[in-house]
């Protein structure tokens, strides 16, 4: 599914943010990624959702070398990946419903086809009543839940979640984690980057620890 071989990443002329990363994720696995602030968690995820390219090393994703991907191949691969961004990245001019349905709309699906699915998902994350409002009026936790819903709405093969519970209470965090586990049961590979030790302790899953760009397996 995912394989990193000696991957290194630096931004511009700065120091290496990621160094000699070697990792392998089996299809259908569930994995935590943790580490102090600024360790490079988000940077590692960015490599996976093709938002940056490594300065060295090899990344294989869905059995393809990402270095050989053409620009017009990216959309198809990205549609197989769901991402919960650390800073949510909701579009303020679209309603919660539209934000969550965006991956489907962008893939040219007709809104009549996905309407009920999306509404059901919104109910699940507790946003049914907020379907028609715009992100600026959502609370922090509500935004985060909308971001999560958008990431999972397309039933992706790979789910990347960056600090997905930083703005919700512990009870809700567990509920959202259940959503990820559910998806995982149906075959989605899940990678969750988080600081939340409480959350990690509640799910039996391997933990990778990043520290100043270096990876240490299992805490």
């Amino acid at each position, binding site marked *: 599914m995912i394989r990193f071989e000696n991957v290194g990443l630096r931004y511009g002329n700065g120091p290496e943010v990621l160094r000699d990363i070697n990792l392998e994720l089996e299809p259908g696995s569930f994995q935590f990624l943790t580490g102090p602030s600024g360790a490079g968690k988000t940077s590692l995820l960015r490599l996976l959702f093709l938002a940056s390219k490594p300065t060295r090393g090899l990344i294989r994703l869905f059995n393809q070398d990402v270095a050989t991907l053409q*620009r*017009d191949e990216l959309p198809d691969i990205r549609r197989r990946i769901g991402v919960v961004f650390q800073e949510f990245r909701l*579009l303020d001019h679209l309603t919660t419903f539209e934000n969550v349905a965006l991956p489907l709309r*962008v893939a040219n699906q007709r809104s009549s086809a996905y*309407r009920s699915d999306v509404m059901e998902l919104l109910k699940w994350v507790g946003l049914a009543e907020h*379907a028609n409002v715009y992100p600026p009026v959502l609370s922090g936790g509500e935004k985060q839940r909308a971001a999560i819903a958008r990431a999972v709405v397309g039933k992706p093969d790979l789910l990347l979640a960056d600090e997905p519970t930083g703005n919700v209470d512990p009870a809700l965090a567990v509920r959202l984690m259940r959503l990820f586990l559910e998806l995982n049961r149906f075959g989605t590979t899940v990678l969750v980057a988080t600081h939340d030790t409480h959350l990690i302790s509640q799910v039996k899953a391997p933990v990778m620890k990043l520290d100043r760009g270096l990876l240490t397996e299992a805490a």
Partner: protein
Amino acid sequence: MSSVEAGAKVSESPKLASVPQHQNAIMPRVHVPLGTLVIAMSVMCYLASLAIGGMLLINRAVDKWTSDISGEITVQIRPVVDADITKQTDIAARLLEQTQGITGVTVLSEDEAARLLEPWLGKNRILEELPIPRLIAARIDRRSPPDLAQLSARLKADVKGASLDTHRQWQEELTATAQTLRWLGAAVLLIIAGASVALVVFATRAALETSREVLEVLYLVGARDRFIARQVERRFFIAGFKAGVTGLFGALLTFGLFLLLGSTGNARGLLSAMRELLAGPFDKSYADYLLFPVIPVVATLICLMTARVATMRILRSIF
């Protein structure tokens, strides 16, 4: 207390879980602020309409004057001391009637001759009491025009004081001026089109730059370039159409204003000439007026195509 209440302004009561009816545009309205573009493009379309209007006026003017003139020749018989002007006029008229290719011969009375000269001379009192030469107007059959050089020679030989005026000099002057003005008009249209393209490219770039975050999200959820370009295009399409219609409407208003101004007593010369041309019969030049509705179409197309090409290029260069 007035305060920062952005949130509150966009607030909506959480509706019941109703199925949303209307879809918001993917490109945010505020991030593609086309208001300025619409105004600027309106001005461009306005100028284009004026330029086209000006060119039509010139064409009509030239048409009118040259057809008035070149369908006709004038023979003048100036008073000569040792010859009776009336007799000479008769001789000339007969000669013209017998000439191949001349269809109608009219001998003008002295009054008529004076009136005919008026447009060129004005009611200039200096000339009021000059002895007026006699004039003969002759229509030319345009399909088989007479040999004017030969005719001129024969007239000179047979009739004392006669000379043939083919108005060729006037015609040449007019045609030359009209041609220069036509070139100028074409140049103006080209400049306007170029400026419009530049405007749209600018606006597209600005729009894409301001909505960079939106674009990033769209890409990350799997959007293709064509999908995004379509969203952008749509906005420019509407902007172009609006601008085209506004500009054209403005121009028509201006023409109307000229008509009004031209019709008041104290407007003279240029203005009343324009008025005459504007208000003149539509006759055969119907087709020319079709150029006007073309302006919004062209403006829309310029906006649409430029935005499309610019968007695709900018997207490729940014992302």
